[in-house]
């Protein structure tokens, strides 16, 4: 583009196109080398987990590390399910997600719509307060919440872990969705009003269908955060049959370290089992996920 317009006098000495092309090539090669190095650093621990999970513990504890198992020990995986009720734990987590995921999507959309479309009294103040709650450490509210749920005899139930999802589902989700709603032209709402649609119908039939990328993002974030959540289930659940996968895996880790025989291979397998569903969800949905964040116009 630059060579089609007259160049200003301040331009430094002319560089021949060939030199430019060569410089670009060098730049590209350097970029690829850096990307590959970083890629290997990031991928290696994951590769190592899978490889470890398929070795015997004797292999793992030899002084010449094996990058790959001599004979893949596939039975390490079923063994994990025999040693702890991991299937049950995963089912428990899925149950929590089945309750929280729709809750977060529905209520966060509602709240975002309220903040994005209705200039009610005190809106800006409340919106700022909502953003401010993200800055306060959760420990402050966690202790009294625990006391509250204790008094209500809801320890060892899933209520404390799921109720928040039906109450707006977190400031970040609301913020993300509200930004997205603001980018939808107001004319669409107005046309729907003329057609006689009420506020709830407008949200459900006009706005929500346009929010797919943003809603997918919120859905994935919600799935991930509940699948990975450790602290909540850790303080609210102390009966093994109620454990989530995260708490169950920690239980297995502590138990394995006390065992007679090293169980590093089984721990690696359990860690891999815990990680697979998350990677699967991400790989299926990553296109929406990344564009969802970028499209929401995370304007800072």
């Amino acid at each position, binding site marked *: 583009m630059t060579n089609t317009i007259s160049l200003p006098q301040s331009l430094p000495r002319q560089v021949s196109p060939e030199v430019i092309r060569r410089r670009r090539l060098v730049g590209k090669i350097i970029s690829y080398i850096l990307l590959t190095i970083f890629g290997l650093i990031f991928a290696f621990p*994951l590769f190592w987990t899978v490889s470890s999970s398929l070795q015997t513990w004797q292999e793992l504890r030899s002084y010449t590390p094996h990058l790959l198992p001599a004979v893949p020990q596939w039975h390490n995986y079923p063994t994990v399910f025999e040693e702890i009720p991991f299937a049950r734990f995963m089912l428990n987590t899925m149950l929590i997600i089945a309750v929280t995921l729709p809750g977060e999507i529905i209520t966060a959309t509602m709240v975002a719509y309220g903040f994005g479309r209705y200039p009610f009294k005190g809106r800006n103040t409340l919106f700022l307060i909502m953003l401010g709650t993200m800055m306060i450490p959760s420990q402050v509210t966690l*202790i009294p919440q625990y006391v509250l749920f204790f008094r209500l005899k809801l320890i060892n139930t899933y209520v404390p872990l799921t109720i928040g999802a039906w109450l707006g589902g977190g400031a970040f989700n609301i913020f993300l969705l509200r930004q997205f709603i603001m980018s939808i032209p107001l004319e669409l709402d107005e046309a729907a009003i003329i057609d006689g649609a009420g506020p709830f119908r407008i949200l459900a039939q006009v706005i929500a269908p346009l929010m797919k990328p943003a809603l997918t993002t919120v859905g994935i974030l919600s799935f991930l955060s509940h699948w990975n959540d450790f602290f909540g289930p850790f303080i609210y659940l102390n009966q093994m049959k109620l454990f989530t996968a995260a708490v169950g895996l920690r239980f297995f880790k502590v138990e394995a370290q006390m065992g007679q025989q090293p169980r590093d291979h089984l721990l690696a397998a359990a860690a891999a089992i815990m990680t697979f569903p998350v990677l699967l969800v991400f790989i299926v949905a990553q296109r929406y996920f990344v564009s969802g964040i970028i499209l929401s116009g995370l304007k800072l």
Partner: protein
Amino acid sequence: MTTMTGRTTAKTDPATGKRVHSRIQRRNNLYGFIFISPWLIGFIGLWLGPAIAALYFSFTNYNVLNSPKWIGLGNYVEMFTRDDLFWTSIQRTLYYAGVSVPLGVLGSMILAILLNASLRGVTVFRTLFFMPSLVPVVAAAILWVWLLNTDWGILNQALRHLGWKHPPSWFGNRKWAIPSLIMMNLWGSVGGTRMIIFLAGLQGIPEELYDAAAIDGAGRWQRTLHVTLPLLTPTIFFNLVLGIIGALQAFDAAFLTVEGGPGFATWFFGLHIWKHAFQYFNVGYGAALAWFFALVIILITVLQQRLSEKWVFYYGGR
């Protein structure tokens, strides 16, 4: 910001203008509050109420089973004068946050700039970088304790191979435990959401600015330094603030790897609060610790905001 009032007030009927306006305002109030009611209920019941309750508890001696007993500033006095682990945990937490966050933000930015260069196959790398941030922290803890195992860990095996006869015992060593946590944290966070936010920030930089710089004869490196970097400062600031708020609350990784050890080397403030509130059920003292901690975080955030006026640049003003 286009709002409904902006448009509806323009439509006011000159004769009965006021009534139309107030009717619309009433409608906006009604539906606005109906729509935000889930959040409002949650905010009052699960946030504001508990925060105030915590403040009250912090002036009491309370163990959940008995009713709270007012002791005035007792908990705060104990915290500052008699609790040995209080200052230790603050120091550990600041060390961890002060190193891991700037390094992490820098790392995420470099990766995003590399990915933004519109090269072929970039999506593959982006996925590769992102994957560690998806690994559940419990699994990551198992994985890193194993990677950094003194005897059989692959890192030490490699280091011994390279001639370092006695490599550090990482999580097993008081001096190396926090650096180990920092490594684990960087691996799991550098390529994650923070990097995506940087990518979004990079895509928001107007193309004209690069063209203009190129016409002025700026090379790729100079454009990065004089166009990209200044325009990314709002994103850097955002990530620093959120990163520090998050890192100061660190609990999971330190607890799941070494439970605050060895010898309290990774005893972060989050663990200290947890121990008192949920292990000893010393709710009053735990609440005092939590409130003090909240004030520290707010103070640090405000300070960053103040400092940001010196180095954050908003293109086209704010």
